[in-house]
């Protein structure tokens, strides 16, 4: 059995919080560059150019690319042969978030849902833990801003509505959201499972590199067709008109009940932030 001390977990989470908020993934900047070539709107082009510049400043100055440094969504993949020592896992993750948001000059954006009082240190983290075979320990920190999260949705469809019904939910969500989720967005779609599984499938779909094909050719075709349809809406960068409304549609599926089609749409703003580490 492999032992991992909670202090190592806290340190890793701290570093990932800072890196995720200051270093935009190269897959996203590459998608901005591609979009610049197809964008017809002068305002849209200017916004894309400034977003590339913004990512560059953030990286060089180790400064948050966006002031909404988000809720810290933390995915843990823990090998079942691992023994965590020195304290509780959840406390260690929250300690890492506390340090990362303090040391990285990141905004503390969490509050009590009823009193609206700020928790002061950006905890608690939104932790999703998965036990896997082996003795690995993988962490992903994915800060999620409020603007795009507010435009997300879960719907329970009837099987009669089929994949066409799913598509309508996705397109309608993007259309209704307009400029609010900070387009160009990445559209995470979860199809199947239960209510909560669908939401998690959609959120996890956002972790896939932008521009990478879906391993299932049928799902890959859906992703490309839906993206094409979304980019015909004209919403454009920041909703001010243009061809680049979304950079990608990412779909995750799993089997569901014979009576339903759970569909979740989790929108991700262009500050698509996630960084991973292995202990």
């Amino acid at each position, binding site marked *: 059995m492999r032992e991992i001390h909670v202090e190592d977990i806290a340190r890793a989470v701290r570093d990932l919080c800072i890196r995720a908020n200051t270093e935009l993934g190269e897959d996203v900047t590459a998608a901005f560059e591609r979009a610049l070539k197809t964008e017809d709107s002068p305002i849209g082009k200017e916004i894309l150019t400034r977003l590339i510049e913004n990512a560059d400043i953030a990286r060089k100055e180790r400064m*948050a690319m966006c002031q909404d440094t988000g809720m810290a969504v933390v995915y843990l993949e823990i090998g079942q042969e691992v023994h965590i020592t020195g304290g509780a896992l959840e406390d260690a993750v929250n300690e890492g978030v506390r340090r990362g948001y303090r040391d990285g000059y990141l905004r503390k954006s969490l509050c009590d849902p009823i009193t609206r009082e700020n928790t002061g240190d950006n905890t608690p983290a939104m932790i999703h833990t998965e036990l896997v075979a082996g003795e690995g320990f993988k962490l992903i920190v994915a800060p999620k801003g409020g603007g795009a999260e507010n435009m997300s949705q879960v719907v329970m469809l009837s099987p009669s509505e089929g994949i066409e019904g799913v598509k309508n939910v996705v397109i309608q969500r993007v259309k209704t959201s307009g400029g609010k989720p900070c387009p160009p967005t990445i559209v995470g779609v979860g199809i199947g499972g239960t209510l909560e599984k669908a939401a998690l499938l959609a959120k996890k779909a956002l972790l896939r590199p932008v521009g990478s094909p879906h391993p299932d050719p049928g799902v890959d075709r859906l992703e490309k067709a839906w993206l094409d349809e979304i980019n015909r809406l004209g919403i454009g960068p920041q909703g001010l008109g243009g061809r680049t409304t979304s950079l990608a549609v990412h779909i995750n599926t799993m089997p569901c009940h014979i009576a339903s089609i759970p569909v979740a749409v989790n929108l991700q703003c262009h500050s698509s932030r996630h960084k991973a580490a292995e202990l």
Partner: protein
Amino acid sequence: MSDAICLETPLTSGDVKRLRIGDRVLLSGVVYSARDAAHKRMVALLEAGAPLPIDLAGQVIYYVGPTPAKPGQAMGAAGPTSSYRMDAYAPLLMEKGLKGMIGKGARNPAVRQAMEKYRAVYFAAIGGAGALISRSIVLAEIVAYPELGTEAVRKMQVRDFPLIVANDSYGGDLYETGAKTYRIEEPCA
């Protein structure tokens, strides 16, 4: 932005009348930050007939909750937040003299009508460009509600803050016309 209009705050009705949707603006002068919690408090004061912590006449409010500034910085990352959450409060503030709002995303019909009635303008800043926009903010001090932290009201001195006129005082709405311009309709079968 060589074709941009340079504007100085406070804004006059004349400044506002010149602006049309799609215009690019470089804004300089004082702007005040306020978002959800500060708006709620200010509107509660107005409804109670109490004075506001800031004089709104000719002023511009920026919907922003910045990250903490690093040592040596005037301001941390400071991009706009979604404006629709301030829609419930904005018309009353325009009635009290507010001339400009800076944020991101579309406004509701009541806000757009109030902009026509009171001659005010809504500017879109680039959402998510927090590090870049930080460079346009040369000074900042908290002038009200320090206990709100990132949501406190700050008096910010800005220089050449790049903006786009999203709603003008003639009922123009770039969110609507922009999307219409670039929409590709499916041909009828």
